[in-house]
């Protein structure tokens, strides 16, 4: 029983690994296309977000943790946005 479960887990891990590798290749490939600045940045950040979510959800088991831990992590991301948005409005442009 326990072994069955962990076999399934190992499959998931390897699938996630594959996805991460593909996404890495993808982001490098996209960067060679010389897209205009805004879509290029948006795409790169989007791919990074997907990769980071995969790692936190599966490798860090966020998916099976309760809401508390997800809340802690998301709260820090939220406050990061609170920091970056006004400052980028002020200095960034």
């Amino acid at each position, binding site marked *: 029983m326990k072994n069955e479960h962990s076999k399934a887990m190992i499959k998931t891990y390897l699938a996630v690994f594959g996805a991460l590798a593909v996404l890495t290749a993808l*982001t490098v490939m996209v960067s060679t296309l010389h897209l205009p600045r805004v879509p290029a940045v948006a795409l790169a950040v989007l791919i990074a977000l997907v990769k980071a979510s995969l790692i936190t959800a599966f490798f860090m088991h966020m998916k099976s943790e309760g809401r508390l831990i997800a809340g802690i992590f998301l709260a820090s991301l939220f406050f990061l946005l609170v920091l970056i948005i006004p400052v980028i409005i002020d200095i960034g442009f």
Partner: protein
Amino acid sequence: MSSLEATQNQTGIPNGKLGMWLFLASEVMLFGGLLSSYVILRTGSPNFGMPARELLGVPWATLNTFVLITSSVSMVLALSAMQDGRIPAFRNFMLLTITLGFVFLGIKSYEYWHKISEGITITSSLFGSFYFTLTGLHALHVIGGIVFNIYVLVQGLKGKIINPDHPDRLEYAGLYWHFVDVVWVFLFPLIYLI
């Protein structure tokens, strides 16, 4: 310490895991603050000094990304092995993780040498300053992670603190190691690709 945890736990989440996640939240803010500064000055500074793409060494950085991702998956496989009681597999996966950590640092040092020989130093431009600050701090975290991983490997083989029934600390080391990976996932495109 474990007796305290046994007597009182309102959430069911071990203290160590909760503490580790809180620590990671603060690390998000630390790296986030630095990355925000980078993004802000990259868009706002009149002379950021972004070097030509050819000088950035994208292939090496891509390789390093693969190295870290692989070490992450071997870390989580090591945890899985420990939970199932497969100690030799645990040992091999941990050794792989630690080795890949060193490989990452090796490639990174080569990159540093390469950058400096091309005239990109910490004082040459804002890009250089941010490049060495961000990757340097990340490398320090990698070193910290390797130390933690070696501790976990030794304890896992001794079997007293970490064993199939108490894999907690192995899990915390994993959380930290994956977090270091996540930071790199953001550093890589932001520094090298755009």
